[in-house]
């Protein structure tokens, strides 16, 4: 946590306008550089049959995990969650499960908005920059994949 991740610029002396051509438009530079740190999303429900899909784990591994829950794990329903970019993958997993079940599985999707918090930490402690936080919203999807009850 102590080492700021260097985004290439941090080692350079700060403003250093090396060649400012008279022709180039005055570029508005941030007076202080910040490191953007994304906090984790707030705590989430985690039952045995909740699957949170991400973009780092291999797609097939996540699909296999869901299959295992439904087939071997004895669950009659699982809930696949995806946030932001992972929405696409969550939908993909749910549709794959449905397709490979020969119509036995049904999907019920809900959407929501999740509030996320970013921390902005000043790169250079000597500068007057204050640590800041910023909140933003991202969309999420929650897909129930289930065997419908025979009626």
């Amino acid at each position, binding site marked *: 946590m102590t080492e700021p991740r260097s985004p290439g610029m941090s080692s350079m002396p700060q403003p250093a306008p090396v060649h400012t051509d008279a022709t180039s438009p005055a570029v508005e530079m941030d007076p202080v550089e910040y490191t953007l740190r994304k906090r984790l999303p707030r705590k989430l429900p985690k039952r045995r049959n909740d699957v*949170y899909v991400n973009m780092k*784990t291999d797609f097939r591994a996540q699909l296999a995990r869901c299959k295992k829950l439904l087939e071997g794990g004895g669950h009659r329903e699982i809930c696949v969650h995806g946030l932001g970019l992972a929405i696409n993958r969550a939908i993909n997993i749910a549709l794959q499960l449905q*397709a490979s079940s020969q119509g036995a599985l049904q999907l019920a999707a*809900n959407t929501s*908005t999740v509030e996320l918090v970013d921390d902005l930490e000043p790169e250079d402690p000597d500068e007057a920059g204050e640590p800041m936080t910023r909140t933003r919203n991202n969309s999420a999807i929650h897909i129930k994949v289930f065997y419908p009850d025979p009626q």
Partner: protein
Amino acid sequence: PPPPPQAPPPAPKLGREGFKKVCRSEEEAPCPFPGLASGVLEMRVKEGSKIRNLMGFAMARMQGEGLVGGGGGGLRQVVFTGSGRAVTKTITCAEIMKRNVGALHQITKLQYRAVKEVWESGGGGGGGGGGEEEGAAGEGGASEMTVHRTVPSVSILLSKDPLDPQEPGYQPPEAVSALWGEGEREGIGHAPPRKRPLGPLGPLGPLGPSPYAGSPHCKRVCLGEGGSVHPPH
């Protein structure tokens, strides 16, 4: 129409230098809301659509600005649809509208949609192409490639009038807090807010002890484009 002269693409390396997507068309799919009146406003969200344009239009229609004798208060229903990389944006649009209009009933439907893409290799595309060229790229002349893909798509119906609660994917108005509130109660015992043993996405398999744990990642790295939306065959 005759098939394109080029050989069928052996899963082209999308995003490779020199190839440019020139056309993308969705093939017709049945409407996921069978009982819907024909006059419902359908917002087709595309990858490049601007949310403010979409919402400016849709909100005005739902709030009934500029409509004469339209039953007062604008349209009763709207459908947002989008596929592939526009899925997230589609959901965001629906979420914004729910927040702004309020008291909307929702049904979300998921399906695969067939998409036809035409890719073109322009010979001198990117500028200063350093690496080796792909065999498929013709020298000098532009060659064309047609790719058929299936991509996930989402359709969201928002309605001021009640919808069938038994329909899969139904969400009553103001369901968001309930959805997460429920989880909060469940999570209270074992998940203190600031330090969790695992990342939010559960055990991370081959990545070892959660890379999320100590270091919230800074900028999002460029995530693979195109590849992620392929359903594996």
